[in-house]
Each structure stands twice: as C-alpha cells, then as structure tokens.
C-alpha cells in the first residue's frame, strides 16, 4: 500500500528533466500524472530510488493546430484530450479513446505522454496513436528527435525512449473527415481492454491497431492490406490475428483473444465504412 522510500525532485522544464535523468541514471523514473507508475509503486512492483516530477511543467500541456497535423503536449491530461474542440473536429478518434481511459478520476490526472511512455500493450491510447500513424517527439541530452509511432513501442512496458529522454509532444495527422472506430472489449467499464481495435478509414491512412494482442500495440497489416485490396469487413477481419500469439491470462485465453480480434476488427471496419454523423 505504501511505496518504498525514494528521493523526489521537481523539474521546471523538459530540459531540466532530461538533465536530472542523466544525473540519476537507472535509479530515476519520470512522474507525470502518476496513474501508471504510482499503482505499481504502491504494490512495490516498482521501486525507483528517484522520482523526477514533471507535473509542474505547464508548457507541456497544450493542443495546437499545426497545419496538417495537431500537436499535443505530452503532459496534456486525458480529460483535456477528451474535451479538446480542435481534436474533436480534426482527430475525433483520439478524444473518444481518451474518454475511455480508466474512469473520470483517472482522466483528471493521467496524461497522454505518461500513458504512451509507459508502453502497456493493454492501454488504449498507444493503439490509437499507432493507428493514426502519429509521431512522438522526445527530448534528450543532445536535443529533440522524432520517433514514428510504429517505431516507438518496442516491447512490453518498453519504448524507444532512452533512459534520459523525455517525451514532450505527440503529433497526429488530421483525419480529414475519415471514418473511425475504437472497439474496447472488457467486462467492466473501468477495466483495461481484454482486446481492443482502433481503426481509421483510408483518407486517414487506413491504419488498424490492436490492443492487448501482443507485447506491444500492433498494426493488423494483413487486414489493412485486405481492406486496401477491396475486401469487405468480414473477409478482411479474418486476418486480424495473423502472425500474432496473443497472451493468455485471467481474462481470456489465447484462442478467445484471437476470436475477439476478428469480431472486433470486423465491427471496427463496419463502423469506419459507415462514417460518422
């Protein structure tokens, strides 16, 4: 219930956070909203020696029109992504998905950057960013770099961020009115997805990404190709689990996950095709 003791330092900026991470090395973890990290620390599944708190870095919370894309500060809370008028009109998949993360209390604290940097394949936002072909911006000791979403999620709870890098911005292309869908299958409203599917229509790239079907969020490439080749939803969705070995756990067996993936992918494609009112 009570985390192991740690030292606590506050960063006033992304630069300062980078420098603090460099100073403390492996002993340090970044703290944003804390709703991925603190639950682990309370169960003592994680016990970093140093927490670098980004929570007061105000200028990393924003949603900006960036021409053909929308730029979102990494410390933008889920509730603010959910409410953003700009995102609702230009990238409607994202605020919808943000509104399904956790519960209202979680959404008042958790941040999009925190969720993405945590790299849990069962989280909702990583799959959405992946389907949207988003870009992540990371700041490190030698400056800023961009990482394509497809290269960002490397393994279970592992991203391409270096130990002294801070995620500062997420860029998502505007969807241009394309159809979209997010299918989240769970047993209780507050639960993680047992399996989830994020899909966008062709005008937005036709990306389809799966939640909790692998050690990272994954694109359902075979389905995307089938759709691009003109296949109807049911036929295309049959390939949803191709090449994947989904986890077997408390909530679903591997076989049931495969089945859910095809059903949910078909439903997502149907919803994409139907467009949005």
């Amino acid at each position: 219930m009570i985390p192991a003791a740690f030292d606590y330092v506050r960063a006033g900026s992304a630069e300062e956070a980078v420098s603090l991470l460099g100073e403390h090395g492996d002993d340090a973890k970044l703290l944003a909203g804390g709703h991925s990290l603190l639950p682990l620390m309370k169960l003592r599944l994680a016990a970093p020696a140093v927490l670098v708190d980004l929570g007061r870095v105000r200028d990393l919370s924003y949603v900006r029109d960036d021409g053909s894309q929308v730029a979102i500060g990494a410390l933008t809370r889920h509730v603010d992504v959910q409410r953003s008028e700009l995102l609702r009109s230009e990238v409607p998949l994202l605020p919808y998905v943000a509104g399904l993360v956790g519960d209202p209390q979680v959404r008042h604290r958790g941040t999009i950057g925190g969720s993405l940097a945590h790299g849990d394949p069962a989280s909702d936002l990583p799959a959405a960013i992946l389907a949207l072909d988003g870009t992540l911006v990371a700041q490190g000791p030698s400056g800023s770099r961009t990482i394509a979403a497809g290269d960002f999620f490397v393994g279970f709870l592992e991203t391409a961020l270096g130990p002294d890098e801070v995620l500062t911005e997420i860029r998502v292309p505007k969807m241009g009115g394309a159809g979209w869908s997010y299918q989240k299958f769970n047993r209780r409203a507050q639960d993680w997805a047992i399996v989830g599917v994020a899909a966008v229509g062709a005008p937005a790239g036709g990306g389809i990404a799966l939640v909790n079907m692998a050690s990272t969020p994954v694109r359902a490439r075979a389905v995307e190709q089938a759709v691009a080749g003109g296949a109807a939803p049911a036929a295309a969705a049959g390939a949803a689990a191709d090449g994947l070995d989904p986890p077997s756990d408390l909530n679903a067996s591997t076989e049931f996950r495969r089945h859910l993936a095809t059903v949910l992918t078909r439903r997502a494609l149907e919803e994409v095709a139907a467009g949005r009112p």
Partner: protein
Amino acid sequence: MKVTITINGQDESHDVEPRQLLVHFIRDTVGLTGTNIGCDTSSCGACTILLDGESVKSCTVLAVQADGASLTTIEGLAAADGTLHPVQRAFHENHGLQCGYCTPGMVMAAVSLIQEQPGLTERGVREGLEGNLCRCTGYHNIVKAVLAAAAEVGA
C-alpha cells in the same frame, strides 16, 4: 519536504516524506478521517476528493504532487452554516448510503460529475461512477440520488 495544501479552505503546512500518499496526508497528518481507503489498486474510489475542483483518487496522488493545490473533502462540502450540498441532501433523501464507507468518495465523485456533465442521464451517471465501488446499495439509490441532485443543480 515541506508542502502547503489548502483543505476545505484551510492551509495545511507540514513536512512530509515524498512517498506519503495524499490520502494519508489528509487522514493521518491533517486528521480528516472522512475520506476512506478501500483498496490498493486505484479501483474503488473510496478515497475520492476534489483537487482544484476536480475529482481525483487521493490514494494515487503523492502529497508532494498536491503542494499548492486546493482540496475539498467530504468534511468541507456542506456550507459553513451547515446547509447540505444538494448531493449530500439527495443521498439522504434517496437512501443512497448504508454502511457509509464508500459514501464520502461517492459523493465527491458525484459532485464533480454533475459539475462537468450537464444533462446527465442514468447511463451517464452509471458510467460516470464506474470508478466508485459500493457493496451495500447495489447502486440503485445512488443513481437516483445523483440524478435528483443534478436536476436540482439545474445541470
């Protein structure tokens, strides 16, 4: 580390360990035991309070993170003259509590929900309270209470 957190209008300045959870700060350091702890996985919402006017699970916030913030707990919800908040009154009138353990968190979550979501429907209330667990009431009367309070508040 020294923090100053305003709780129910009162400034509370104390020296805290970085690892102290906000809920323990509220309960043990400040002595306001109305806010309860019901789990250790951020699932139950019994610890819900308002932080700068928004509902948060105080078990998933460090006291140091809340430095400079303004909190409202159940003890600070009624008016200074004792007049109950519409949500408190609605819970009473609709028998929305039994053992009372989930109640402070449930009430604070409801206050925040009503503020943020005008035109609440039953579905909206049930989903809005997905993060607040109750074992006694079966939620039926809690939902009634929240809808009644929302109507009164004119939301």
